[in-house]
């Protein structure tokens, strides 16, 4: 391995993985893999608790909480269960626990989700935002530009697949500015939300592996909560950068399309055996 395992730093990152089976529609466990491996390659241990429905742990014990996406049916189950976890989750957010919430997880950290059809779901209100279901789905490659004190301007790349339109209140900042894709609602040009160390986004793909700068930002902030500022030694990210660049090119090539698959040229349908189109 190019990234040889370093010495044991005696640091332990405590991760709470919320609904690892229920909310896992878009293979977002890749986010967990990215965090765990990038810690391991630096000699940082990780302790992972899987948190299922009906369980109400003290969420302030975690430095990092993952809350991923699910289909509408799963989301209903999660929304109902979440109310019992709400108070402890809010305490964790206030005590600077890092959250990464994706898609349905992002929506449920807000105040409410009103689907296009069906009853409104209540969120936990950690992020000052609400979401309404739209009649069309944004299903395409996305790139956004973010800015954080630790790393300056950086680009996040991923894939979005959501019909929800999310609107931020004054208590939440957008995660980034949309370069290509649709983001929160397709109108205001912003994507995701940030409050303290709580990050919500529609980006999957999964988002962390091909955005190593963001993974490291989450790891550093999560460790800082327990250990004070920790310097993360750099890793060889050439593989990740190549994947990042490829995803960025796709996002720019599909800019303006609501559904990437529908925008795939007719030539491909006529002759699916043709050489892949170069972008």
């Amino acid at each position: 391995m190019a990234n040889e395992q370093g010495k044991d730093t005696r640091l332990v990152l405590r991760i709470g993985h919320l609904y690892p089976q229920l909310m896992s529609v878009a293979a977002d466990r890749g986010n967990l893999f990215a965090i765990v491996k990038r810690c391991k390659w630096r000699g940082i241990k990780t302790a992972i608790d899987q948190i299922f429905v009906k369980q109400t742990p003290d969420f302030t014990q975690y430095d990092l909480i993952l809350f991923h996406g699910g289909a509408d049916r799963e989301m209903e189950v999660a929304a109902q269960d979440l109310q019992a976890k709400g108070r402890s989750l809010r305490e964790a957010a206030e005590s600077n626990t890092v959250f990464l919430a994706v898609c349905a997880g992002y929506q449920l950290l807000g105040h409410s989700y009103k689907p296009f059809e069906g009853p409104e779901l209540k969120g936990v209100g950690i992020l000052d935002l609400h979401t309404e279901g739209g009649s069309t789905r944004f299903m395409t490659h996305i790139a956004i530009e973010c800015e954080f004190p630790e790393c300056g301007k950086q680009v996040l790349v991923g894939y979005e697949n959501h019909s929800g339109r999310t609107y931020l209140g004054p208590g939440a900042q957008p995660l980034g500015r949309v370069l290509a894709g649709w983001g929160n609602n397709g109108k205001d040009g912003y994507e995701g939300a940030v409050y303290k160390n709580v990050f919500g986004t529609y980006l999957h793909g999964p988002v962390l592996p091909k955005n190593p700068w963001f993974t490291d930002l989450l790891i550093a902030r999560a460790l800082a909560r327990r250990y004070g500022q920790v310097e993360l030694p750099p890793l060889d990210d050439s593989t990740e950068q190549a994947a990042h660049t490829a995803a960025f090119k796709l996002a720019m090539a599909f800019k303006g399309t609501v559904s990437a698959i529908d925008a795939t040229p007719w030539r491909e349908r006529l002759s699916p055996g043709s050489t892949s189109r170069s972008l």
Partner: protein
Amino acid sequence: MADYSRHGGGGISWPSRARLALAISAGKLAGASGRLFRIGGGTSLPGMIARRIDPNVLRSVMAATTASKIVITGSNGKTTTARMTAAIADASGRRVSHNRTGSNLLQGVTSVVVNYADVFGRLDSDLLLFEIDEGTMPVAMPEIQPDVVVVTNIFRDQLDRYGELYSVAKALDKLLERLPETATIVLNGNDPQVASFGQQARARKLYFGLRTTDIGRPVPEHAADVIRCIRCNEDLVYEVAYLSHLGLYRCPNCGYELPPLDVAATSIQLDPRGDGPTQVTMQTPLGQVELTLPLPGVHNVYNAAAAIAASIAAGFGIEKVPAALSNIRTAFGRLEKIQAGDQTIYLAFVKNPTSFNLVLRLIAQHPGEKHLLLVASNTVVDGEDFAWLWDVDLEEISPQVADVICSGTKAEELAMRLKYAEVPLDRVRVVHEREAALNAALQNAGPGGTLYIMASYTPTQELRRIMQKRGWVKPYWEE
């Protein structure tokens, strides 16, 4: 006019008939020139051309034929199930028309009609067998009006094309409700979602599946999709899980459980080296059948059970089943074993976590270190959203990986996924161009070596075309 009424064309006006004839002729011509110039098997082009000329071509021919019509749909296993059903029908003396190359969108289905019908739209077949993509079912079903519909399973598949799993399932269930009482619905009883289909349907239902503790695991794997009760959302309890969410399940809350299976594999002996043959005892309403399948893996037991159930539904009986299935070969790209000079290639078409994981588990049982070629593309048939790669358990094979070539528009993502599965970086290389990638991978495999290729649909066809030029395989439309 009377002589047409039995075969086709009855009641259709002359202008319509002329249009139909033109549509079929043009389609046939397109298919023939495609094959002549070796640019493709004409598996979807004839249907596409014909539909442009006469949008009713499929509907007209279907309405006129007296042949029985079987539709096979679902996420995985359609092509092999259709091939097995065709083999049983064939052995039972039926004349079969079949979209056997797996071109299963509306154009491909229409191509069957164009290829097999004469210019008057008359078919000389007893059985029409259609493999149909689950997303195409809402448009195909009303045109075909099938007698038997088989649903193999529903897995997450191309989220960016069909939205979420449940909307695909809901749409399919609605279609089944519209079938007349003379029709039969053949359902996978081990799939908690598929087994719940057709509760409001008038058609007869037949359930197939596995009912044995010979194989399987105590809980479903990570990539499993439906592990909550269809009725009350409680987590299902599994006695055994055979493949993803397929298994013997029960809801501890409301008591929903798998239905009694009409066609059930009750004893299964898989080949421990991950190859064929597979010994199966199948219980059916017409008696017990002992099978020796030359194909590996639990998925092929499902395919056989589905095919037998379809055959029973269509009235072929079971006498010819063991003989018909003992000669069955893998469909192209289904872990297809290819002799490439002194080297061996296994070509696997993988399209979702379930099929990819299945292939990985099978080849992990093959002895020795593995040389791999992984190819993923982003055409309309392959999908744009490749997130599902992270639900593939590459960790299961990473300790055995000697080297990997990654290719296709998603090559970089593949390489990164391998890195996070702890495959050492110096064993992974990205080669974008398809033929160069194949050559590099074969070079890695070395003289007399074995190469494992896992690729999405478009690259599977591209690679097979290269191998066809080299004389290693026949064109897929001649398979």
